[in-house]
């Protein structure tokens, strides 16, 4: 019950402090730019009509680029909105009147996590769904595994959210932000190292990528999402260019990512309960 009160409070806060509205407005702007760009590039292609197969390939390439950008926005939103969630309450002393009430500390942390998780879920599904819908309406292109793919993109947001919530129980807002983005950077670079390693068949590079994914398993969720959306397309590096997935994340890695997230949430609840305020 307290957890739900805090979750509601968290959503209300992002709304009252205009974070929600700005994120939604700029999400719309992003969609507008993508749709406009997609429309004109596709129009050009339609005029020099070569065949249905090429048209579908172009649509899938543009869609992959759009999803890539969507994914990046989802990551930034996940970190930036939640990075102060716990630490700012401590830094501004607002936490003192909350935690002297008959509530448990973990309820506060879980409530915050839940509030942001709901908002991220809605935001990422709306943004991704809008892009997929537009591409379907404009180019009659449909992706495979719609829901599992979207859920993996949401999962990546939740993974970063769990990381910032966990960091916020011990670190200052700024240090927490640096930690989250740097860990994401490690995963990002690791993902590319693994990718290139897989293409040139360099096992050491692939191993480095795997280690990076163990440190921060965010990039593999995105890769898995993309391969679920476009299985045929993304498996061929020559066709798909930068949005290829040469090295498929294993199922074990997905399980690891889920455990990683659960571990982060668990650490956050434990860590905040132990902390002196």
């Amino acid at each position, binding site marked *: 019950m307290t957890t739900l009160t805090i979750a509601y409070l968290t959503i209300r806060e992002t709304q009252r*402090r205009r974070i929600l509205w700005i994120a939604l407005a700029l999400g719309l702007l992003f969609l507008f730019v993508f749709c406009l760009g997609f429309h004109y590039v596709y129009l050009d292609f339609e005029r020099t009509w070569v065949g249905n197969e090429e048209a579908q390939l172009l649509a899938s390439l543009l869609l992959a680029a759009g999803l890539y950008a969507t994914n990046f926005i989802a990551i930034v939103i996940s970190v930036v909105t939640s990075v102060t969630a716990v630490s700012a309450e401590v830094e501004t002393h607002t936490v*003192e009147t909350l935690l002297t009430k008959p509530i*448990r500390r973990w309820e506060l942390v879980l409530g915050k996590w839940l509030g942001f998780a709901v908002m991220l879920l809605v935001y990422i599904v709306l943004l991704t769904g809008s892009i997929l819908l537009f591409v379907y309406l404009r180019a009659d292109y449909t992706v495979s595994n719609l829901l599992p793919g979207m859920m993996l993109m949401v999962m990546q947001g939740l993974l970063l959210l769990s990381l910032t919530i966990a960091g916020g129980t011990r670190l200052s807002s700024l240090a927490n932000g640096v930690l989250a983005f740097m860990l994401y950077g490690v995963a990002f670079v690791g993902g590319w190292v693994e990718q290139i390693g897989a293409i040139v068949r360099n096992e050491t590079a692939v191993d480095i990528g795997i280690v990076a994914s163990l440190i921060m398993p965010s990039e593999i969720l995105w890769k898995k999402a993309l391969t679920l959306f476009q299985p045929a397309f993304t498996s061929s590096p020559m066709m798909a260019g930068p949005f290829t997935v040469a090295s498929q994340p294993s199922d074990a890695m997905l399980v690891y990512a889920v455990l990683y997230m659960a571990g982060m949430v668990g650490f956050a609840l434990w860590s905040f309960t132990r902390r*002196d*305020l």
Partner: protein
Amino acid sequence: MSAQPLTIHTMSLRKEFGAKVAVADLSLQVGRGEVFGFLGPNGAGKTTSVKMLLGLTRPTAGTAVLLDKPLGDRQARAKIGFLPEHFRFHEWLRAGEFLDLHGRLYGMNREARAAAIPDLLALVGLADRTATKLQAFSKGMLQRIGLAQALLNDPEIVFLDEPTSGLDPLGRLLVRDIIDGLRGEGRTVFLNSHLLGEVEKTCDRVAFIRDGRVLQTISLHDPEERVQVTLRVGSPTPQLLADLTQFGEHVNLSRHNGRIHLTLAHESRLPDLAAWLVQSGYSLYELNPQRLSLEDRFLQIVGNDSGDGAAR
């Protein structure tokens, strides 16, 4: 010590932050219905002590009982109100929403919240501000709404940390009235303040703390109040100063104006002192007794806890 049952009882509470000892040995007892002042210089460990009592900070050693429950107990917290020193709240909430949220956190149902909130807003003089966002509030108004928040649950103990720091004289009077009201209802008030005038007017008992230890606890209703005496005697001798110690403590001769200061345990010693001076052949020009203000006592106790030498 109050004959009433205890609401707060701490036994050798200690808090270390690494090598730094914030609270060395805090042992105190507060009775039900008491207004208890907690006084000490900056860095004495007052805020850390309060945070331990409220379960925000875990003691390194020692134990405490609040409302018959161990520290940090949730059932006890349901009966505690707290206005922190840094009264920062979620400023994007409206005053009514803010109280409603804190009522929910206290576990109050909708009816209880709806009944309590308008009364409390009226009590702290913010009845017409229900729909105002806290970010539009002045410092004093924030402190008032914070006070209302601390009273939402009809608390049995109210912890007030510097509750008048942001208030004008009218606001201070209001806080004093509220504290008197709480005392009248048999509630305990734990007041952390260094406005000694305020404390003197509101508290029943005060504890002086320094370096995380209770140096002394005194009752402000105690009729056995000590008196500070200023004497002007013709040609005071070292022998006179030595003899005066039989009447009181803190005897000293002011080099500045030649007057002798000493503290008597009770004003009933005054006639004896005057008679002795005259009988001993000293010419007495001036004998000026003054009740020790809380500030005098604060300086005597906190400024000098070794018990000898000049306090002022």
